[in-house]
């Protein structure tokens, strides 16, 4: 489903991703953990085409994200090609990024109508189903600014699902939430993960959640994968010292 081939990403002189190689199979739930600044979020942003790779290639379903075939040559992807590849990918942001100028319903219907070409009726029907799923049916006509952080994030999750993505990127989706709202959002995500065959790539600091839902956990440091294992193995008996110290530090913090 996703494949990173020798991906390098630099911001100026800072190397964020250093010849990174990994892949994610369809339907898998893969969690990225590691210290801040280790490049986890950059991976999601590269996949969403919010950033460009410095070198190397990323494949989604066998199609290259950054380049396209023209004749026999590979040329940098244009907007049209990127939009086609992006179609399959959804993303939920740390800061929700809801559109404050639209009510909840329109936040959910805007992109399906404009981008997928759904009719308004279809889009609204689906939006209402999704709002029911995230438990916010009564907020259908609210403005994002009238919602709590947890509610905004639920709407953002519903908005991403409304695009029927094959793959969902979760970027520290609970980091901006008040502690008492975190559990609800995580439970919702777990529910979605178990009831759909969407591929998940998730960056989080919630270790219990990661252990609970992931098929595989990747430990990151300095732009490289330190360890790649199933959660039980990685959290109970990690092979690497770096993983051990990181987990100890995170778990001690509570």
């Amino acid at each position, binding site marked *: 489903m996703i494949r990173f081939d020798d991906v390098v990403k630099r911001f100026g002189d800072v190397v964020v991703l250093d010849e990174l190689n990994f892949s994610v199979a369809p339907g898998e739930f893969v969690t990225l953990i590691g210290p801040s600044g280790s490049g*986890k979020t950059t991976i999601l942003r590269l996949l969403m085409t*919010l950033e460009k790779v410095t070198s190397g290639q990323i494949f989604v379903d066998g199609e290259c994200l950054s380049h396209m075939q023209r004749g026999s040559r590979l040329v940098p992807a244009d*907007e049209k090609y990127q939009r086609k590849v992006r179609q399959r990918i959804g993303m939920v*942001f*740390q800061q929700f*990024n809801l559109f404050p100028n639209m*009510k909840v319903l329109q936040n959910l219907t805007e992109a399906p109508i404009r*981008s997928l070409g759904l009719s308004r009726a279809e889009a609204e029907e689906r939006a209402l189903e999704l709002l029911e799923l995230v438990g916010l049916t009564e907020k259908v006509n609210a403005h994002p600014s009238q919602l709590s952080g947890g509610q905004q994030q639920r709407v953002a999750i519903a908005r*991403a699902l409304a695009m029927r993505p094959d793959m969902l990127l979760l970027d520290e989706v609970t980091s901006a939430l008040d502690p008492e709202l975190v559990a609800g959002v995580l439970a919702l995500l777990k529910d979605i993960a178990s009831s759909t065959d969407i591929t998940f790539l998730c960056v989080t600091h919630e270790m219990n959640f990661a252990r609970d839902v992931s098929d595989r956990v990747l430990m990151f440091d300095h732009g490289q994968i330190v360890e790649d294992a199933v959660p039980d193995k990685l959290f109970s008996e990690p092979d690497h010292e770096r993983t051990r110290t990181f987990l100890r530090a995170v778990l001690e913090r509570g």
Partner: protein
Amino acid sequence: MFDNIGLFVETISKGLLLTVEATLGGIVIATILSFVFGLAMLSRLRLVRAIARIYVEFWRGTSEVVQLLWIYFALPVLIGYQIMPLVAGIVVLGLNFGAYGAEIVRGAVQSVPKAQYEGCIALNLTPAQRMRRVILPQSLVEMVPPFNNLFIQLLKGSALLTMITVHEMTYQAREVLITRHVSQAATIWTIVLLFYLVLAILITFGMRLLELWAGRLVGRKPPQRGLLSALRSRRGRAAAITDAAVAGIGHTSDRSGGDR
């Protein structure tokens, strides 16, 4: 001292309509040009950006008085016929203040958080959909206060049309009243100032209503205080964008990075 007040008010009122016409005409043209060139300055195409930049620098850099003198005295020589003074005045007001307004539009669009662009990309909206459906509606509310300041500047700028013989309020006072009643200059000019003050307050009220409407677009609650607070609320954030527009200095927006 107060004998002739009735006459003064009546004479100045004769110029009121022209002042209002010039101001409204200028506002309409300036607003259109603000959006056209403000968005053009954000274009991906270098040439479009360059053209917009030249328009802005030219009309801000040459004084409004010079522009009026040019269009009134010099242009007729080049094109062979005299333009109606009011029309010439409206065109200059529109072109001149449109250049300042373009900076306001650019600044307000750029002040929309980068996260909103990213949200649009994640939802696969086209650049045009992004601008029209998401970014512009959000930047409108940021634009209204600086445009309020700009429109009041434009109202004040309309007094300069005196120089090209538009018989607006300042002309009525200077050329009609002062010549005959110079001993009552203080009264005459005070009345003129009050007329302008009232017009400025009307503009502010109008813009305040517009701001409430634009605020509702982004789900902002109307402030507790009523319309009377309008004059006070012109300041603050508006000043920042207006100053940037006055100076042509880029409005640096908050581009938060997050975890890399």
